[in-house]
């Protein structure tokens, strides 16, 4: 009964690990409580997005990850 949380890009450095397992179900408050304070601070920034089960949430406070689902924490991107 767990949710996999992925730390992408610079959040990986901040978290110190590429991913972590947290108990399911996992909502927005649960996520903020589970990650380190430094990561939680970043998560509150509007430019950091959250995806659940392969879909980017239009409002990350709506997070409701179920057992076996993957949550990705998406900091500002930089391609090209």
């Amino acid at each position, binding site marked *: 009964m767990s949710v996999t949380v992925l730390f*992408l890009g610079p959040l990986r450095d901040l978290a110190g690990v590429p991913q972590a397992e947290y108990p399911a179900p996992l909502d927005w408050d649960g996520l903020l409580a589970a990650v380190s304070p430094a990561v939680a601070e970043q998560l509150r920034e509007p430019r950091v997005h959250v*995806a659940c089960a*392969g879909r980017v949430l239009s409002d990350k406070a709506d997070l409701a990850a179920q057992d076996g689902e993957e949550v990705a924490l998406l900091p500002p991107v930089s*391609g*090209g």
Partner: protein
Amino acid sequence: MARLTLETPADVRLLDSGISVGEALAAFNAAYPDAGGIATFLGKVRPDEDVRVLELTHYDPLTLPGMRELADKALTRWPLDGVLVWHRIGVMHPGEGIVLVAAAARHRRDAFHAVDFLMDYLKSAAWLWKREKRADGWHWIEPRAQDFADRNRWA
């Protein structure tokens, strides 16, 4: 010589090894024999600024689907025969290609606009994270204000 086969009207790829530019553009050209013009852009790792290597990370469930949506947007927005959107991931060195974009169209201005648009979005809206290794270690790169301004031209 085995010819590279492209998907039409949109060939979208994430590549974990070097981009063969000449081969890609020859194949793209051959794929659209009816187009009046083909515009392309190749972005490369610049050897200045003390950059030793560059690494691009992606997120499988989002990155390629997002690039496909972007290609479809370009196809909807301009009368194009087809597009090519290739992006490198992984570790690359100065001088290597990072991104190759091409658009085939009846009229050259449509092809130019599509390539310009695709590059602006890849720079600031594709699910890719870039970091550079300099003499003092790794640095994450964020889009500059200019990149957002470039993208907002299309809003």
